[in-house]
Every structure is written in structure tokens, then in C-alpha cells.
């Protein structure tokens, strides 16, 4: 739900909890396509140096750069939820949206070569399936304000209260 201080929700990952299992990717692709295929997942895990890992999905940026970049107006951003929608009829796979996205949150369908993006499972009652399934509770549906509050509370507990 949009609040007075911050409009848009997105799925965020806590890298200290993520173990890189990729179950989010199987479940996302299955939800969207009926098949398990990480190439069709809208959330993607990343691993570096054996121990650094996290997952990335659309960050529902304000005035999303991907929408601005699209030369064919195939991308639109819902004003209430911030969710990006891609019109497959207009998209021609030019990948300017991918250039514009700093987070690598947009992917290309290997069969159609068209762009795909997370829509927070807006059509499902229990919301983002990746969040539901993550075995380590590393994923959360959140807003920028909630992320900041969480970080401040964590800081207080770890550095002020515990010592």
C-alpha cells in the first residue's frame, strides 16, 4: 500500500541471509510461465567470490529510467504501485531499457527475445511468490522507508545496545 512518505514497494534481498539456492528463480518462472526455467525468472540471484550473494528484482524507481529510455513506449509505470508493465506487442527487444537499468533487473526471454520484468505478482492474492518461498527469509516486499528504518534499528541494537 502506498504511504504518504513513499509510494512504491519492491522485493529486496538481505545478502547476509541469502544462501544462493535460487529457489526464488524456479518459483518465479513457474508462476509466470508454467515451467521451471531460471532464464524466465524476473528475480535473479548473483554470486561472487564464493561467499557474496544476493538476489535482484525490479526496484520500482521513481520516474523509472527504463520507461523513459524505451523508444517505442512499450514500458509504462503504474502511478499508484510503481510497477512496470511491458507491452509485448510494442517491444522489439532493442534492450535500451536494459541499458537504462542500473540494477540488471530486466531480462530477455531467450525464445521471443523480448523484455521481461517483475510485477510483484500483483495478480496473486498472496503476493510475490519468491518472498513466500525463500527458505532463509532473505527476501521481503518492502519500501525504501522501511529499508531505512530497518537499518537504523539494526544499527542501534548492534552498536548501541549490545556492547
Amino acid at each position: 500500500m502506498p504511504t504518504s512518505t513513499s509510494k512504491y514497494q519492491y522485493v529486496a534481498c538481505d545478502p547476509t541471509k541469502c544462501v544462493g539456492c535460487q529457489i526464488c528463480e524456479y518459483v518465479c518462472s513457474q508462476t509466470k510461465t508454467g515451467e521451471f526455467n531460471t532464464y524466465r525468472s524476473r528475480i535473479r540471484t548473483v554470486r561472487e567470490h564464493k561467499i557474496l550473494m544476493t538476489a535482484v528484482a525490479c526496484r520500482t524507481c521513481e520516474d523509472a529510467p527504463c520507461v523513459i529510455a524505451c523508444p517505442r513506449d512499450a514500458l509504462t509505470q503504474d502511478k499508484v504501485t510503481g510497477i512496470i508493465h511491458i507491452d509485448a506487442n510494442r517491444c522489439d527487444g532493442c534492450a535500451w531499457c536494459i541499458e537504462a537499468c542500473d540494477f540488471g533487473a530486466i531480462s530477455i526471454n531467450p525464445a521471443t527475445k523480448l523484455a521481461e520484468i517483475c510485477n510483484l505478482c500483483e495478480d496473486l492474492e498472496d503476493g510475490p511468490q519468491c518472498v513466500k518461498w525463500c527458505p532463509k527469509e532473505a527476501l521481503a516486499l518492502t519500501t525504501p522507508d522501511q529499508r531505512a528504518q530497518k537499518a537504523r534499528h539494526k544499527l542501534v541494537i548492534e552498536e548501541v545496545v549490545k556492547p
Partner: protein
Amino acid sequence: MHGYSGKILHIDLTARKTWVETKPEEWYKMYIGGVAMASRLAWENIESGCDPLSPGNVICIAGGLFAGTPVPVGGKYGMASKSPLTGFIGDSLSGSWLAVTLKRSEWDGIVIHGTSEDWVRVFVDDDRVTFHDASNLVGLNTYETEDAIRDEYGDDQIRTACIGPAGENLSRIANVSNDGRKAGRTGQGAVWGSKKLKALSIRGTKGVSVADPDALLQLSYDILQAAQGPHTQKYRILGTSSNVLNMNRLGLLPTRNYQQGTFEDAELVSGEYLHENYKAKTTACAQCPIACEQIGHVKEGPFAPAMGHIEYESLFALSSNCGVSDMEASIKAIVNCNDLGLDTMSTGVTISWAMESYEKGVFTKEDFKCEKYPEGFEARFGNGEAMVALTEMIAHRDGYMGDLLAEGTKRASARVDEERGTETYKWAMNIKGLELPGYDARALKTFSVGLAAGTRGGCHNRSAAYDPDIKGDVDRFTIDDTRGELAKSTEEYAAVYDTLPLCKFIRRCFTGKADRAGAWPAIAQLINAVTGWDFDYDAVDLIGERAHTIKKAFNIREGWTRADDYLPWRWHHEPMKEGASAGHVVTEEELEYLKDLYYEAKGWTKEGFIPKEKLIELGMDDVAEEIGV
């Protein structure tokens, strides 16, 4: 058909060509995947009597039924060949992303024949197979090889199985690595090296569909939730390394080449110590909600930097069994093995043989001369630096000792005993050539027959009979006439997991109980949700018996006889002196009696051969023709 494409990819490295073999649904119902399917492909394709390092040997890779789906811990695959270490079936399991990409490439299995003239890597890109010059990859370690190939294509979803320098140098204890996991045992790496196959890369872009996705998702979700609770706690927080203190207390921790079962510095090489001092993070394989990989990190000191995941079997072999108390040396040695492509277990137990041989005066300091240590060194028990150095020497066949130890304990001891008139075979700790695991079976008597009769050699994972012994379900210090049935039962139970494959760490997460009644019904439901078949408890149980039987049949065809089911000399003749298991041995009479019981429980003849009717009953008519009695 759901769950399978019906197609096996054959690759001939000599002629650089490929062909497709189709298999009927009945074949999949019998062999499923993992070690059973890989061993069946080995039975079908390997020239009997061939030298394992010759073109007649074949690499058989079989996928996982649950790979590429959210079924927890289903991301595994099997690999089989004729083992250069044992001369019998060499079946291994690995896991993580390669299993997933294999499934998505829509090949149920990949069979690699022949030998390449030059170093080659193969790329299976969905249904396009290409051969590439691998000379630029030769000498790279396993992680470097995977990264180089991924960078070349610019796709981080391309997954690669490869060998490191150890496999390139035909070390019989070399492994095949992928995604930080290993098809570890029996010398798979040497087979790849003999074929000049440096790497096999797979990209699969197809979607995986199943017969009943709703049922599969519901079952998977419940198992995933259960996997966060107490049934997996020990794996998630401490990992299997917590076994060091346990085994030490029971007097079963192999110490100084299995001379003793207690190590005075066990605390310093324990999982608890690792957790407190060296743990960097816990990570997971693909498709795994448990996450048991405890990553240890050495940041400072003579063995830094070293980071890798630490398991019990790797740890005992490269700490207490070498008399080494310095965990940093152990971590470094394990990481070396992972990088260079060596089986940590066989490497550690071979090094400990060399250390004992040195202490007994068979070897001198000069025998350990190599590039880094031109004067040689004193390979005493407890010398961590020597242990680390030897891992590198073995991978590169560097110096007399590196070249000797790369052969494994069985051949190394035979060669030395012939050359020097010694009796080092008495402390060459292997069964059928495969080095032993981290449990001393002088006081685990049910387990002793499980190890002796093991088809790939002395293997705890395949036998699993240490479980009733250690838990106290039976008296581990004595034998009785139930032990044959018990050894059969545990090994066939393990074989079900190794065939699907599913990681055994999930076994309590179906109902809270790990036994057949607690697990088979849920597994049957999972199988049916993927394939649309009609498996029940009995059908699942049969998977294990078939898996074990096809491996046994392979061995019989390669000349196995009852005499090949033996225990190492030390376990017959030298009781331990200290600890909870001191004073015990398995006598030769006891072993022969246990073997009688075990063969009888299996429905085999007294000589251990398989009656024709038994094979036909299992649906293996062609096998009955060839080796049934």
C-alpha cells in the same frame, strides 16, 4: 513422457561426432537417474575388460529426476565410469547448477566415448554440441577453468564440469568438479584426463515442466519449511564437521593413518572450532533450502589466503588422520584439493600412508624431493606444511613422491613393496583400492561388511551401515546373524537417494522420521507429481535394490570374486590401544561369516554371484543373460 526427454546424448571424442539414443519409458522407470542410470549406461557402453585409462572406457552422466524444479535438494546428477583406482564400477554423485542446466538442455544423460587427440572442451548448448581447443585451459585450476569458459561466452548460466591439474596428470585420485561441488571419488578425473577432456559445459534454456505442478509445488513447499527446523539444524549451523568430536569420543576418529581412534587435539580440528574461528558464511547448492556448506576462511598466517567449504570427510583425512592439529593447514590442504581437482579423502589417506611409511623408515627425507623442496622434507605425522606440500605434489606428479602417491595407496604400496622389499601394504588403508572414510570399522562391525562388500570400494556413503552401529541400535563391538540383512537394508536405502537423486540431508524432513516408512511415501508422491507415474512404497524401495544390483553386475563382468570383498590388514590384525573402541578387530572368520550373511540376505550365491532368476525378477533380463548364474 514427463520428467524425461527420452534422449541420451552420445559424444565420440575420437571422431568428434555425436548421436542421439532414445530410451523407452520402461527404461526410465527402472533406472530413474543418478548413480543407477549412470551405472546402467556404463553397463551398456563400456567395453568389458578395458583399461580404465584407455579409449574403451566411457564417461556416463545421468541427470536428476527433480533437478531444475523447486523440489528441495533435488539438484544432483550422477557420473559413472570404470574406475582407474579399483578396476570396478566408479559411480559418483555431484550436484548444484550443472544438474539444473543438464535438465534444461533436455538431455537425460550424456555418454562420452573415445579419446581426443588434443586437449578439448565440449559445449552442449541445448541441442547444439561443439568441440573446442582447450589448450588455453590446460594447467588452470577447476575454478579458473569454469570462470574462463563463462567469461568467454559471457553467460553466467553456462555451467561447467572440469578437471584440474590432477586429472590432467592422470592422478588416479583426481576428481571432476563443477560449481564448487565434486564428483569426488574413484578417480573420475583421471578418466577425463586420459580422454584429454578438460571440460564439459552445458547451457540449457528450455523450461522444465512436470505432470502435476500444483502437487509438486505443494509438496516442495512443505518439505522446504520442514528443512528450516530442527531436522536440519546440525547441518545448517555446524555442518558435518561436528562429527570430529563425536567420532573422537566414540574412539572412531581415524588418527595417524588409522593407527588410533582418538586424537589428542581433536578440539582444535573440530567443527566447533571451525565455527568459532574460521567460518565465513554458510552457502547452498542450487535448489537447496538447507544450506549446509560451511565456508572456512584462513586470513592470516603461513597458509593464508585459503577459503573453501569444509566437510567431515575432508577434514578427518587432512587433520587427525595425518596427525595434524593446525586447522589452518587442514583448510589450506582441502582448498588445494578443491582447486587442483583431487579427492580430499583419497588424498588425505594416501598422504597418511606416506607419513607412516616415512616414520617406519621406508622413506627418507630425500624421497620427498620436489620443485618447491629440492632437499626433500620430513614427512612426519603432524607436519602440516608437509601435508599441504604433498597435495600440490600429487596433483602435479612432482618428484618421486608426487608421482607415486598420485596412484593411490593400493598401487603405491604394491610398487614400493616390490621395489624395496617392504610390507607397506599392511597400512595401505583402502578396500578394492578406494581409500577409507572417516570411521574406524574395527568397532563398527555391521559397517565392516558394508565397506568390504561395497561395489565402488570402501565407501561410507554407499553402505550407510555405520548408522545402526553408531546409534546403538545394535552392538557395534560384536556380530550376530542379523547383520547381513542390516547391511543390505542400509545400502539399498542409501541407493534410493543416490538414484533420484536427492541429498540425504533431507531425509527427516518428510515426516520427522528418516526410515523408509517416514520417507518413501512422500518420495513416491514427488516422483508421481513429476512423471505422472503410479509409484508406491514398494516401487520406491525397489529403486534401491535395482541400483545396487546393476553396479554389482558391472563388477562381476569385470572379474569380481568373493576375495575382492576384503578389509585392510590393519583392521584384521591391529587393535587400537586407546579410546572407547580400543582392543577390537574384525577377525577374518568374522568377516567371512558376515559376508555369508550378507550374500544370503541379497539373494546371491555363496560365492556372491547373482542367480539368473533374481535378475529376471528385477526386470534385468539382458544382465541375467550375461552374468546370471
